């Protein structure tokens, strides 16, 4: 018995050793990016490489912002992500509620369409979308960049699921008996009871909106419209030798997501696990 217990103990220890080693591998790329961003050019070129900078410097950050309008890229990313998040939350709330609680002609067909096209990847229809936006002259505009991210099929499903399962129809009926209109019910009955689901949708939308790449790559030619992702890529091609600045720019792009993640860690992991979707 004692022998078995030591064996089990060794097993658990081995598990932790493996998990720790794995954790090290997982943080390594980002950790390396962070420390490199704080090294001087001379230190970056040192061989063999040293992990921590001997002298921490922020010169790369200033350098990056001087070489390219990163502040502009950052603001663009933030605007895109925030507008997209607000719009996705609103449209998901409205459409999710209507699909969950109302009967009207065409409901099955519409919802079926949303469901059926949900898995078609954006990359598969970006060309026609691009052509459409050429037609209305929206290439190189903010509205053109944001347009495809104003709603999210997944957000609609999630809200519908939530409203179906956790908001009693009687509550809405009670509102109607008291003379409330449907919009009032939506805003004052359903929205306040949907905080968690709305937050989940919002988090997904924000993560997605911050990281969009291929669409701005197609549609934004003017550097002033670049988001962080596109700005970084352009910067990379132009100054590929300037590793310090490149890493500094990358850090700036990663930090907002890290903050969001560390603040809402538990909720993000649970939501993603339970709903099975990626940001």
């Amino acid at each position: 018995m004692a022998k078995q217990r030591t064996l089990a103990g060794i097993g658990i220890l081995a598990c932790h050793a493996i998990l720790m080693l794995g954790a090290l591998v997982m943080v390594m790329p980002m950790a390396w990016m962070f420390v490199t961003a704080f090294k001087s050019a001379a230190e970056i070129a040192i061989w063999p490489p040293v992990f921590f900078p001997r002298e921490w410097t922020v010169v790369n950050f200033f350098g990056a912002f001087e070489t390219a309008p990163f502040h502009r890229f950052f603001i663009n990313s933030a605007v895109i992500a925030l507008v997209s998040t607000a719009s996705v939350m609103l449209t998901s709330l409205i459409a999710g509620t209507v699909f969950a609680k109302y009967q009207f002609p065409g409901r099955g067909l519409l919802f079926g369409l949303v469901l059926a096209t949900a898995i078609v990847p954006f990359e598969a229809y970006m060309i026609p979308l691009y052509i459409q936006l050429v037609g209305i002259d929206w290439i190189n505009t903010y509205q053109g960049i944001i347009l495809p991210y104003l709603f999210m099929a997944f957000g609609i499903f999630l809200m519908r699921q939530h409203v179906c399962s956790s908001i009693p129809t009687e509550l809405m009926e009670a509102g109607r008996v008291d003379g409330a209109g449907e919009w009032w019910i939506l805003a004052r009955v359903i929205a306040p009871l949907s905080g968690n689901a709305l937050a989940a949708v919002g988090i997904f939308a924000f993560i997605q909106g911050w990281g969009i790449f291929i669409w701005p790559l197609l549609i934004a030619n003017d550097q002033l419209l670049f988001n962080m992702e596109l700005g970084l890529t352009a910067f990379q091609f132009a100054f590929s030798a300037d590793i310090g600045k490149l890493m500094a720019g990358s850090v700036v792009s990663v930090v907002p997501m890290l903050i969001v993640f560390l603040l809402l860690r538990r909720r993000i992991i649970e939501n993603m696990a339970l709903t099975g979707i990626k940001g």
Partner: protein
Amino acid sequence: MAGDTGTLRRFFRRRRIILFCYVALLPVVALFFYVRIIPIGFSFLLSFYKWNLISPRRPFVGWDNYLGLLEDENFILALKNTSIYSFSTVALSTCIALPLAVFLSRKSRLSAFYQTIYFLPVITPMVPVSIAWKWIYDYNYGILNYGLSLVGLPSVAWLTEPSIALWALVIMGVWKVLGYNMVLFLVGIRNIPAEYLEAASIDGASDWQRFWRITLPLLRPILLYVIVTSTINAFNVFTQVYVMTLGSQSAPGQAVRMLVFDIYTNGFQFFRMGYASAEAVILTLIVLGLTVIQFTLARDKEAKPR
């Protein structure tokens, strides 16, 4: 009389509610049609035309674009690379994530810590992450080659040698999705009723047997879901290819050609809109095929309860 007004009132209320539904849905549905349904339909249509985006001439060419694809070396290569990339990334990340999830399913104070760390890459944006990996893979200054030199191995041209670059992308792909798969498996394992495993222990089953006979079969639906969705996601790989290997993409021996990259090149560098659309249609069909496989297998399981 009272009944009549009741019916009338109900009729008007019903109409008011239906009107509300349409008014409420109109903006979302209009948007949905404009940015999704119409482009998807248009993409099928466009794949039968030849068009360079500018010319007023837009001849109908039937199946020519598709026939052209069959003989297009770049496309065949892209299809092959993307398939290798997807299946390797998914197979590796599943095989690594599953045991990790089993370890983590034991009650441990460190469980939340591990989950956070492993999940980190999932939420970080692709471009900065690709730049970080590009630096790691750097031939002269990369820490990976430094690590290899420590154990006496020669330096590897991770990103410039096409056959190796594909695997460099696979390694990074595994790193990016590992945490996501692990967390999903973990939820699945925790949902398995403890009595099943206890009963098996009482019957004298070893840990190994319990995993193969109880955990794995009960995990099947989640396993299937994770495998199919991550294969679909992997088929759309683009950003890291663009950021990490484009430098050598224009060089004679092309680096890693992937499906979406090929669509992008044909569509937006050569302006072959119809041709690129045909490729996009094939991507859609692959994704649909994978989804159908998932549904069929999932239904199979339900039809045959054990």
